[in-house]
């Protein structure tokens, strides 16, 4: 029995239904998100150049997600490489 009494349209019952609906939507979206993660984790199996690029990154253990140069491995040693001869 809901807090709102026996009326099927009571706020309590509606809120339980609403919560269940929101829970279902959340579960469905999380499933979709999991599927997206699974697909991306397998992106290296793509045929063609896109797959090649990702396979090359994975083979060289390159972090293609770094946002700033200090997140790249060995960043402090990269400063004076390309200079005019």
């Amino acid at each position: 029995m809901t807090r709102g009494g026996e009326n099927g349209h009571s706020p309590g019952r509606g809120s339980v239904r609403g919560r269940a609906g929101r829970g279902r939507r959340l579960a469905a979206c999380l499933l979709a998100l999991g599927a997206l993660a699974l697909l991306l984790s397998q992106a290296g199996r793509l045929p063609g150049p896109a797959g090649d690029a990702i396979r090359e990154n994975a083979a060289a253990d390159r972090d293609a997600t770094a946002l700033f140069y200090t997140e790249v491995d060995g960043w402090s040693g990269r400063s004076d490489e390309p200079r005019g001869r």
Partner: protein
Amino acid sequence: MTDDVSPAPGRSAPPNRPSPPDGSAGRPNASAPPRRGLLASEDWWAIWLGGLLIAVAALGLLTGVAGLGRWTANPLEAFDGRVAGLAILGLGLALVTALAAQAMGGRFIQHQAGFFGLFGLAVLSYFLANQTGIRAAGVGYAFWAILLGLVVSNTAGVPSWLKPALRSELYIKTGLVLLGAEILFNRILTLGPPGLVVAWLVTPVVIVFMYRFGTRVLKMTSPSLVIVIAAATSVCGVSAAIATAAAARAKKDELTLAVSMTLIFTVLMMIVMPLGIRAVGMDPTVGGAWIGGTVDATGAVVAAGAMLGEEAGQVAAVVKMIQNILIGVVAFLVAVYWVTRVDAPGAADRPATAEIWRRLPKFILGFLGASLLFSFVLTPALGDDAVAGIIDLTSDLRGWLFCLAFASIGLESNFRALAGHVAGGRPIQLYVVGQAFNLVLTLLAAWLAFGGVLFDPVS
């Protein structure tokens, strides 16, 4: 940044109303004594917390920052031997941010309780980003944190116990103060003029072009959205978007939109540009410089440059590094421009110096101060290696703070607001036209600087 959705409890800014110009949150009125202002503003707290974290790292009190491990097929590998470290990190961040929250009018215990939920989302974001395939594809924690937040807020809704911890501005601005430490101006001197030509001549031109194109040709109504997209496109993607969004007090969904676009296009450019360069037989060094000046995120630059060979990879990385350093200058100039021009469009509205100071987002002082401290005090005093060790720590902390901020922004955003910005396709048009202009101009600069025209070829 400002809220455009319901703010979390404990925050003073009502929906659709910008935060106070000085970034204060929870401050009852502008006549509060200055001392209270220093403890009641997110901008100032970002400086205190950022300074505290830098001091802890520089004094050797912090020897490592917990993170998740890489994993391929077994998810448990991500947590192997790291759970205790993550718990300590979560507790530490919860404690310091709760102190700030309480000083700004929030509640210590409620913030702590909500923070662990938010930290859980951040851990989940890093967990997904650290999967080797996803990492190689260039889909980082920012993407997952925003997406997870959006999923929760747009389906089940944000639970009330989580709301007190949703202080995205505090996390972003504190992260930006730490980011300041990573901007080493003294490194510019060692990088050589060719990289400077590509990174520093083109970038300001592209920003100005995109800003004028967005506001005058596309007639986009939000200048802050335009500048955030322009900075993300021309400087360094997500980190530039964060810095300029904070400097221009952009709305959270504007930052979400700019970051989402830059993340998607970065992955595309990381794959397409090396292919195109190889297909036309371009000099790999010129191609590397082109990639370094145009691909938004540094990780993608390194990956794309490496596909052209070792030397091209180095050139790409260094050009990007020089461009990264511009972020401090850009954020500062945007903050000043916003205070003096955008917020005061008429000549009669131009604020006096004292008013400029009052409106200036104060975190920018911490951002620049950290940069100057590391560039001109700590590096000469401690040496490059010691400073690099400190930056490795602050960089990890900054990553966690940005991740918390993105999860928080996702939780505070809604699809309807995002769809409103995308309507008409103007932000995408701005990005595409701006990036096309950037590609052409950077190619010209790369050819002039690295093609043996203005300088000797690089080695």
